[in-house]
């Protein structure tokens, strides 16, 4: 089977790269080993959130100060500025409505009630542009009875510390109560599947309208709209006060929704998305990769002019560690990691962890290296890359999106 480009991995970076290429008429196949870590996403993208523990206000400016080995440094601040605009377009073309700017971070709210710097946030989620000028004074935090996925007291406490006046209001509806029969299923994604019909949404709106009291904004956990934002819009239209959502613990409805929309758009552009298959090995000829074998396609390897490695980090099995080494399991390309296992981690889970920065080595064009030499038609994007730290630097989704589009450009330019 011959394609223009085969992308190994099926998450955010794979889809962003696949969409960019498919949009220009290229035949693209994505090999996705199941669902991705986007289902842990709270509805925001971050370009660069922190340097040395301090929040970044102007990410594009701060990118220029990053060390040489950071993936952004290989692309350069000017190109990142241009690509960041194309990312916004890619989202809106996919039907994902987000707001934000690469010039100035805004704040997103975590389920724990912490404000974190963000680049883009879904329009239906709570976004704070300026901590000194909050979007509302008085919040009605609607707490769904029996719901697991938001620690309401911590969230309320965090919001109060930011300067909001917060009323915690518990409520339920018949549809929500019916879910409690199966205690393990009282989760955000299950609620999103129940709260779909106009009747179910009206019952929620009735509660919000009668209980929100003096508040000038109603805050709900992000449990609406598994496929698009229309369920939220319907609910907002039924609710008298402005309504915003706040991220829940994973799996998240916002992440599920964004993935569904990106996949749908990719398919619409003619892309092929192989869900539940895994790239297992590759065949090299000289300094080129010629084909990739997958677990399911077996004796019919995927051949292509270009390949992209977007298999993610340790959690997605794009990187593996055993007791002796850290390695990239599909193609055996070079990784940047300490040989000494003692250095991989530090004591204390909140301490900086060296392994977060490990990943595959690439040249300036994001080409993977094998035995120190670049593979001409193989690029790495997203979390599998070395040199960045999504936890400490808040650059995970940004690196995924920016490198995805930069790699798509390189693939095009090399023609």
């Amino acid at each position, binding site marked *: 089977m011959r394609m223009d480009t085969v992308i190994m991995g099926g998450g955010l970076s794979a889809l962003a790269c696949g969409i960019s290429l498919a949009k220009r008429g290229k035949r693209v196949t994505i090999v996705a080993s199941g669902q*991705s870590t986007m289902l842990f996403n709270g509805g925001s993208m971050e370009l660069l959130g922190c340097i040395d523990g301090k929040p970044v206000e102007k990410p594009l400016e701060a990118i220029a100060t990053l060390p040489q080995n950071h993936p952004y440094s290989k692309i350069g601040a000017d190109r990142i500025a241009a690509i960041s605009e194309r990312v916004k377009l890619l989202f809106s073309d996919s039907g994902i409505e987000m707001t934000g700017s690469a010039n100035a971070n805004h704040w997103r709210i975590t389920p724990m009630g912490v404000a974190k710097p963000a680049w883009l946030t879904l329009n239906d989620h709570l976004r704070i542009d300026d901590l000194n000028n909050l979007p509302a004074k008085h919040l009605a935090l609607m707490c769904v009875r029996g719901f697991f996925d938001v620690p309401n007291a911590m969230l309320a406490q965090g919001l109060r510390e930011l300067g909001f006046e917060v009323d915690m209001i518990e409520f339920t509806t018949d549809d929500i109560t019916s879910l409690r029969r199966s205690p*393990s299923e009282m989760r955000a994604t299950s609620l999103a599947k129940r709260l779909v019909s106009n009747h179910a949404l009206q019952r929620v709106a009735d509660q919000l309208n009668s209980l929100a009291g003096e508040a000038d904004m109603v805050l709900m956990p992000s449990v609406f709209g598994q496929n698009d934002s229309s369920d939220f819009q319907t609910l907002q239209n039924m609710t008298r006060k402005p309504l915003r959502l706040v991220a829940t613990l994973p799996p998240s409805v916002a992440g599920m929704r964004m993935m569904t929309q990106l996949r749908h758009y990719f398919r619409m552009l003619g892309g092929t998305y192989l869900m539940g298959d895994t790239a297992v090995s590759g065949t090299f000829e000289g300094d080129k990769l010629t084909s990739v074998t997958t677990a399911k396609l077996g004796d019919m390897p995927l051949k292509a002019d270009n390949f992209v490695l977007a298999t993610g980090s340790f959690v997605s099995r794009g990187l593996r560690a055993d007791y002796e080494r850290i390695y990239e399991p599909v193609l055996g390309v070079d990784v940047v990691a300490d040989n000494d296992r003692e250095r991989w981690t530090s004591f204390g889970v909140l301490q900086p962890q060296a392994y977060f920065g490990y990943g595959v080595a690439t040249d300036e064009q994001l080409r993977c290296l094998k035995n120190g030499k670049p593979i001409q038609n193989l690029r790495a994007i997203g979390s599998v890359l070395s040199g960045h730290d999504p936890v400490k630097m808040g650059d995970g989704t940004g690196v995924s999106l920016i490198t995805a589009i930069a790699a798509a450009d390189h693939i095009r330019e090399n023609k």
Partner: protein
Amino acid sequence: MAERMQLCNISENNFEQCTKCSICTTVCPVAAVTTDYPGPKQAGPDGERYRLKDPAYFDKALKMCLNCKRCEVACPSGVHIADIIQHARMDATLGKQRASLRDTLLANTDLLGTVANLVAPVANATLGLKPTKAVMHSVMAIDKHRTFPAYSRQKFTTWFKRHAAKEQDAFAHHVSYFHGCYVNYNFPKLGQDLVKLMNAVGYGVHLLDKEQCCGVALIANGLYKQAMRQGRTNIDSIRKSVTRDNRVVLTTSSSCTFNMRDEYPAMLGIDNADVRDSINLATRFIYKLVDEEKIKLIFKQDYKRRIAYHTACHIQRLGWQLYSIEMLRMIPGLDLVELEQNCCGISGTYGFKKENYELSQAIGATLFKDIADAKVEAVSTDCETCKWQIEMSTGLPVENPISILADALDVEATRQANNIK
């Protein structure tokens, strides 16, 4: 030394791979529509810890699992969630209780088919009658909304022996065909279409020495021992075809294929390692021949249709929908709509049972809406039970990709292009 030991110390229990991310619960079609089912994470890896301690922790709600395998397809950690659930069901059933008459009848698709073929006109008329349906609904607990797929007057194998077998040896290449119960008893045309297609590109088609129902319905209905017997017979025949006759085995049903390739070893303990790669869905086999430029397909100039492709659960688990989709895309006049991957809700015999009817239709609702929105004249899928469900629920005809290919094929031009006399 200590580190070496750790390196080898990996649990045999596949459920230990579960990281509790809960992603499987977001794709389960059953948990999406009912709170009676605990969801794949709880039913699978979580529950398994308890069941290892004491089998009494088995939860009857596990019978609600469709075995659609969508949880396994979604799992980022390679946990065989549905296999764990199926094994738990098997452990709880084996040697303890007998399947009900209804389940036994539904599961024995070949017994039912053999009898019904003999009296096809009577059977079809009777099974369609309201009084019959009412009796089946109340006495047998087979839902009254369901219409049994019509039985053919002539079995596929009878047709094949009378009208096709003689010519097959003359071809340069040869394959065997595992037709399955549906083709044999209900819809011989699909088998005839495959013969037409393969013959046009120079391949003779042959029956296996002995074919029995693959057993997918037997497993679903708890008749494991019978499934094992039939599975062994099938693998013996397949092995003879592959090693003695040098013929790979083609299929036209995604569930038979998945069952014989993956469920035989995983669920029934039947070792098929030596022949597994020789059990091939026909669309995949033909795609490979075209891809390697060993054959050419020429399609009719005037063929024009708009068709939606539905990815059946088991072909998604096989990861082979790609081949059926790419084959259909080769037909110049075919406007193909690829539907979002959602379960139709029938899951073999599941939806036929009275207690499951409403659930089955609720599960399929998303797919039916997508089909209505697609504005197509027909739907294509590789699964026969999806076909019944979609035909009943949308009113549109549903055709196997092989039938569509055979229909669109310009047989004479294809024979010439492949130098077949």
